[in-house]
C-alpha cells in the first residue's frame, strides 16, 4: 500500500502524480473463499478490514453489485454521534465513535472526521423531558452529553431563530461535543484500500443472485459472475436486506423506505455544529466546502425508488426556513435519496440466522453511517468466531421473538 502523507504527495507531485497506484486492486474472483461479504459499502468493507486485521482472516471477498460505496455510504448526511438512549445502542455507537476518533490514522486515509459538536434542539416540554432522560443515560454510560439552555444554544448557533414567538420555539437542547461529521465516501474508500492491502478481494459489478445451502449450512453464492463457494457469508446490503435474505428463505422484520437529503449552494461559513430537531425532522450542517447539508424525514410508503417524494422536501425546507430564517434565500442545489432498511425498534440486526454460516448486518435505518467502524468491528468478530461480540449480542434476530426490543425511535432523529 502506498503510504499517504504530505512528503509523499509533494514527492509524487513533482513527478506529476504519475506513479500513484490504484487505491484498491480490481481483484480476480476466485472460486472459493473462507468468508464472503456481500455489499461493498461502509459496513461491509469495514467488516472485511477488521476480519483481516484483527482476526487474520484474509481469504475474503467483498462482492458489490454496482460500484463500491454506491449505496447508503455515499448517500447519507455524514453525521456521527453516539448519544443513544438504551445501553445496548449507547455502547455500540460509543465504541464506534471512539474508533472514528483515530480512523484517519488507522486507515492512513483522511476521512475528515470533524468533531464540530452536535446539537439536538427541543421545541416542547415533552421533548425537553425526553432529551433530559437521554442525557442522563448518556452521562452514566460514559458518553459526553450536556443539556443546554436556549441562550447557550443561541450563542453556539447565532443564525438559529431562538426567539420565543416562532412556531417551533427552541426551549433547550443537548450537545454532544464529540459528535460531528465525516467525509462519507472517504470512509468507504479508506476501508477498501486498507482491506485490499491486507489481501481482501474486492469485486465490483458482481451481483448475488442466489444463496446455496446444504444441511442447514451455507455453501456458496450464485452470482452474475458464476458460483463462489464459502462456508461463511455476511450479508451487509442496506436497502436490499430483505431481498438477499429471502434468497435463503429468511424473513426479516424490515421495511425499506426512501430517505431524502439535499445540499445547497456553497456559502462562506455561517455555523459550526450539526443541528438536529426531531420534532420537525430537520438535521443540518455546513460542509467544509460551504454547502448546507439537510436531511429530511423518510417517505411513509415502502419503496426502493431513489427519487423520494418532493412533498417531504417542502416540509423540511419549511421547517428549516422557520428555524434558520436567513437560509430562505439560499438555494437548493441537489436533492437525492437512499433506501433505508428500518426495523420495528429502529435498531439494527447484527446476527446469525437460522442458516449456519449465514450472518446478517442490516436494519440500521437512518443510523448506519455513524456506526460504520463499530459495526464492522463486531461483525468481523461475529464472522470470525461464528458467535456475536458482546456489543452486538443484544442486536440479534431473536429479539423479535423474545420481545427484547431496543426501541430507539426517540434517538433516531427522524420519525419512522
Amino acid at each position, binding site marked *: 500500500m502506498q503510504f499517504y502523507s504530505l512528503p509523499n504527495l509533494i514527492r509524487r507531485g513533482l513527478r506529476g502524480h504519475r506513479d500513484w497506484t490504484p487505491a484498491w486492486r480490481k481483484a480476480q474472483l476466485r472460486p472459493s473463499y473462507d468468508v464472503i461479504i456481500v455489499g461493498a459499502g461502509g459496513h461491509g468493507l469495514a467488516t472485511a478490514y477488521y476480519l483481516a486485521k484483527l482476526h487474520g482472516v484474509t481469504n475474503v471477498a467483498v462482492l458489490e453489485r454496482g460500484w*463500491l460505496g454506491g449505496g447508503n455510504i455515499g448517500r447519507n448526511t455524514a453525521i456521527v454521534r453516539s448519544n443513544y438512549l438504551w445501553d445496548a445502542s449507547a455502547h455500540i455507537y460509543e465504541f464506534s465513535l471512539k474508533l472514528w476518533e483515530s480512523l484517519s490514522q488507522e486507515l492512513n*486515509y483522511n476521512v475528515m472526521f470533524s468533531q464540530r459538536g452536535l446539537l439536538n434542539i427541543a421545541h416542547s416540554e415533552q421533548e425537553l423531558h425526553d432529551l433530559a432522560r437521554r442525557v442522563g443515560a448518556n452521562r452514566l454510560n460514559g458518553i459526553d452529553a450536556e*443539556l443546554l439552555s436556549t441562550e447557550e444554544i443561541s450563542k453556539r448557533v447565532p443564525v438559529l431563530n431562538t426567539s420565543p414567538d416562532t412556531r417551533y420555539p427552541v426551549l433547550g437542547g443537548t450537545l454532544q461535543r464529540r459528535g460531528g461529521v465525516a467525509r462519507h465516501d472517504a470512509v468507504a474508500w479508506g476501508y477498501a484500500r486498507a482491506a485490499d492491502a491486507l489481501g481482501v478481494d474486492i469485486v465490483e459489478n458482481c451481483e448475488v443472485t442466489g444463496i446455496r445451502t446444504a444441511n442447514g449450512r451455507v455453501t456458496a453464492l450464485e452470482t452474475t459472475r458464476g458460483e463462489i463457494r464459502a462456508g461463511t457469508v455476511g450479508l451487509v446490503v442496506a436497502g436490499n436486506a430483505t431481498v438477499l435474505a429471502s434468497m435463503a428463505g429468511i424473513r426479516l422484520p424490515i421495511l425499506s423506505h426512501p430517505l431524502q437529503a439535499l445540499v445547497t449552494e456553497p456559502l462562506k461559513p455561517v455555523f459550526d455544529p450539526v443541528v438536529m430537531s426531531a420534532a420537525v425532522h430537520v438535521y443540518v450542517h455546513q460542509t467544509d466546502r460551504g454547502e448546507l447539508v439537510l436531511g429530511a424525514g423518510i417517505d411513509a410508503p415502502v419503496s426502493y425508488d431513489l427519487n423520494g417524494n418532493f412533498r417531504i422536501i417542502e416540509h423540511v425546507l419549511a421547517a428549516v*426556513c422557520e428555524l434558520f430564517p436567513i437560509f430562505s*434565500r439560499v438555494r*437548493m442545489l441537489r436533492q437525492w435519496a437512499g433506501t433505508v432498511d428500518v426495523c420495528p425498534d429502529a435498531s439494527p440486526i447484527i446476527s446469525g440466522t437460522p442458516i449456519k454460516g449465514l450472518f446478517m448486518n442490516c436494519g440500521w435505518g437512518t443510523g448506519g453511517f455513524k456506526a460504520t467502524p463499530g459495526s464492522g468491528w463486531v461483525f468481523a468478530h461475529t464472522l470470525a468466531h461464528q458467535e456475536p461480540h458482546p456489543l452486538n449480542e443484544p442486536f440479534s434476530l431473536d429479539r423479535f421473538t423474545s420481545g427484547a426490543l431496543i426501541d430507539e425511535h426517540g434517538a433516531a432523529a427522524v420519525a419512522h
Partner: protein
Amino acid sequence: MSQPFRLDHGGRVDRDTPLQFTFDGRPIDAFRGDTVASALLANGVTLVGRSFKYHRPRGIVSAGAEDPNAFVQLGHGARTLPNRLATVTAATPGLKVRHVNAWPTLEYDVMSAFGLVAPFIPAGFYYKTLMWPRRLWPLYEHFLRHAAGLGHAPDAPDPDRYDHVHAHCDVLVVGAGPAGLAAARAAARAGARVILADEQAEAGGSLLSTHERVDGLPAPRWADATTTELAATRGVTVLPNTTAFGLYESNLVLLAERLITDQPDSAGSENGARVWRVLPKQIVLATGAHERPLLFANNDRPGVMLAGAISTYVNRYAVAPGSRAVLFTNNDAAYRTALDLTDAGVPVAAIADVRSDPAGDLSSEVRAQGIAVHAGAVVRHAQGGRRVAAVELCSLDGAPLGAVECDLLGVSGGFAPALHLHAQARGPSEWDPTLAAFVPRGANGIHPAGAVAGQLGLADALRQGTQAGSTAAAAAGCSNGSDLEVPRANESTQAFIQPYWLPPGGLARAKPQFVDLHEDVTLDDLRLSLREGFESIEHVKRYTTLGMGPDQGKLANPLATGVIAELLGRDPASVGTPRHRPAYSPVSLGAIAGRHIGPLADPVRVTPMQDWHEAAGARFENVGQWRRAWYYPQPGESMHEAVARECLAVRHRVGILDYSTLGKIEITGPDAGEFLDRVYTNAWKRLRPGRCRYGLMLGEDGMIFDDGVTARLDDQRYLMFTSTSNAAPVLASLEQWLQTEWPDLRVYLTSVSEHWSNIALAGPRSRDVLAAAGTDIPLDRRDFPFMTFRQGHVAGVQARVFRISFSGELSYEINVPADCARHVWEALVDAGRPFGITPYGTETMHVLRAEKGFIIVGQETDGSVTPDDVGLGRLLSRRKDFLGKRSLSRPDSVRPDRKQLVGLLTDDPNQILPEGGHVVDSPGPRRPLPMRGHVTSSYFSPVLGRSIALAMVTGGRAALGERLYVATLHDNRWLPARSCHPVFYDPEGARQHV
C-alpha cells in the same frame, strides 16, 4: 466608462432606457434588456470571478444558466442573493453586484497563492494528508473551511414571501426556443390547455440570437409574434423567467418562476418566486442543448467563451465580447459565430477546426470573408493572464502552427442535449455517435423535441416541435382536426461533428486543462482519478468533485464523459454520466417552503377558551399542534408559586381546567361493545349505559399505546376519550382494524374532538360550583356517583357531564358543544367565585395526577412499557383476547427484572429530582455505570409539602423502600431517595368518591 464594446446597432436591448449598476463598487452603464454579463462585457469587464479551488481569474463563458464562472453576489443585508449567475441576472438600475470568493479584491486575490501549490494539491489531496498530528485537524479544517464557500448568506430574515401554484394542463412545454414555441403553438391550435415555461426573461431561446428567418420574418420577430399569439390564446399560460427544475414520478413537474418587480433595488428586480407544481397529461421537452467546451492549456482564461454565447452577445445584446477573435471548433456552429462577429465588425483572426475537411456552405461563406481557416488544427494553449492575449495553434499531431493574437477565443466542441429533467425521471437515453452525446428517447408521455432531441438545425427543430406538440395534444385527448402547420425556415444540414475529447499526444500533457471550470477539475485530475482506480463515473465525480458546483456540471459532465471514455479506451455509452438530480438550476429554500412558514408552518390548534386564557395571563405550552394553558401566574408570581397555588386550590377548594384537547371518538353500532372488547384490555360489553370505565389500549406488541375513559352513552353508543396527542393515531388505528380486519363488525367511528369542548371542575367544592352555575342534572352522590355520566344542561347549555377524575378529587368533566363552551366556562367561573374557583393549567394537572400515581402515556411510558410494568396488570382480561395480549406472554414480557413504576421520595423533602435523571444502586465514578431506571415525573407536591417523583425501576415493585440514588443532569451529584408505592396522596381513593 461608456460601453466601449457596445455595438452601435442591432440587438434587443432598449437603447432608449439606459441604466447604471455597480460591480464591486464600479459604475457600469447598461441598457434595459441587458443581463449583468452582457453589460459587463459591453464595458470591457472580463474578469468576473475566481475559481473555487485555485482562485484563478475567470470570465464569462456562456450566456445562460450553464455558466461555471459568473457567480456573483447581488445586493446586501437581508435581501442579498448569494451565488447568482451574471449571465441570467437582468441588469437593473441601482443593482449592486459584488464578486464572491476572492480577498481582498478580485484583481489581487491572496488566495490565488493556491495556484502556486496546485501541483501538490491535486484532486483528493486532502484524503492523503492533513492527518498528522491528529489534534491539528480542527486547525487544518478551519483553514479549508474559510478558503471554501462562495457567497455570503443574508444577515437577516428573508423579507420576501413565496407562493405555490398547483396547476394541471394537457401539455406542458418546457423551453420556448424554436421547438418549444412550435410545439406550444401546435398543441394550442389543437385545443389543448398548454403551459409554456422558459427560464429566460423572454421567450425565443436561440431564435433571439440568430439572423435566420422563420415564416419570412426575422427569427426574433417570429418568436415575439408567436409568443403574443400564444399568450392571447385561451387556455395557454406563458411563463417567462420560469425554470423547470424537477421532474418527478407521475410526471409531476416543478417550475420555479422568478417574480420580477419594476421597482428593483440593490439586489435587482427578482422579487420572490413562485413554485408551480404542474401535473400535465403530456410533456414536450424542448430544453435545447449546451455547447461543449474544448480542452487545451489554460482553457479557463477570461476571454475564452462558448462560440454560441459569443453569437448571443453579438446578436441579442449588441455587445462585442472582444476586439479580435479566434475560434476553435470541431463542428459547423463556430462558423456562424465567425460570420456574426464579422458582421459586427469584430475581426476574426483565425478558425482552428479539428476536422481535416470542413466543407459546406458555412465554411465557404467564412472563407469568402477572408477568414483564415486552419483545418486539422487545434488550439494548444491560451496565452495571457487575466485575459487571453494570444492562442498557440498546432496541427493534430502537435506541429506548431504559430501563435495568433486575440482577446477572444470562441470554442465549440459540439452540443450536449439538456436532458437533465428527462434523466431525473430516469427517462431512457442513448449515445448518439453523430452528435457524440446522449440523446433522450421519448417515454411515459414525455416528448423531446428540437436540440434536446438532437435536431440542431432550425428547420428541423421547428418541424419536430410542431410534431411533438401535436402528438402530445392528441395523447392528452385534444384533437380538433386542425392541420399541422410547420413554421418554415431555411433547411440546413445537420452539423457534422468530429469528436475531440483529448488533445492528441504531447498536447494532452500540457496543463492545466480544465474539464470542470467551477470545481477546478483538470484533465490531470481525471487521469489521477482513473489511475487510482476511481473509474466509475460516480467515483470520478466523488473523488474529483467533478460537476458538484452550483452549475451542476452542465458544461463539465458531457465533456467528462468523452474524456474518460477516451482515457479508458471505452465506449462513451458505457461510461455514462453522473446521475442527474434535481434541481436543474438551484431554487431558493424559501420558494420551496412557500407559505408553510411562520404561523402556517404547522397549524396551531386552540380551544374556544383561548382568548379567556390569554386575558387571564396564562402561559402556554405546545402539546403536539395544541397550544395549552400551562399555568396562570398572578403578577409577581413565579411558575413554582403559581403551580403551588393552583394545586392547593384544587385540593382544598375547586379548580377549573380547560381539557378540550382530549381526543373524543364516538363509537356506535350494534357491535360497538364487541369492538371495544377487542381493542381494550378490559371487558366492556357488560358496562351499563350511563357508566364510565378506564381503558388501556395496547399495540399488538403488547406495549401501552393509549389510555383513557370511555363512557357508554346508550345501548349502541360509546364515547371514548383518548390522550391529547394520540387522538389522530388512535382513530386511524381503530379505523384500520375495523375496516381491514373486522369489516363484519357493525361499528362506526366518528371523531368528535372538535365538536365537544371539555371543562373539568375539580376539588371538594366542584359540586357546589356546578349547582350554582345552574344544572338540571341531580348532583347528589347517590344519583350521580363516581364513574358515571349524565346528560342535561349546564348554564343553559346541553351538556354531557362525566364524574371522572384525573386529580383524585371530586370532579366533573363537562362536555358542551364547542360553540357554547366559552359561555359555559365563564358561567362556571362566575358561579365558582364565591367558592374560590381557580383556573389551573397543564402543569398543575400533572402534579395532581402524579400525587395520585396516575400515568401519562408518553411520560411514564415510552413504547416499551406493558400494563403490568405500570401496575395496571389488573386491567388485563383473562377471559377474552385483545390487541397485544399474545405479546404479553413472550419471554421478555414476563422477565422479573422489567422496569416497574415506583414512587421515589428524596431524603431531603425539598429536593426535586430531575426528570430524566437515572436511578442507580450505588453511585460512583465508574462508566458505564449500571442503571436501574429513570425518573419519569418529578414535582414538588404542595399538599404534601415535599417533593415526589415517579420512576421506572428494574424489579422496583418487589423492593419498595430500597435505597436508590438519582444522578443530576448538569453536575455530577447524586441525590439519595427511597422507593415507595407510587400513590402519594389519598391512597384509598376516598376523595373522588365523596
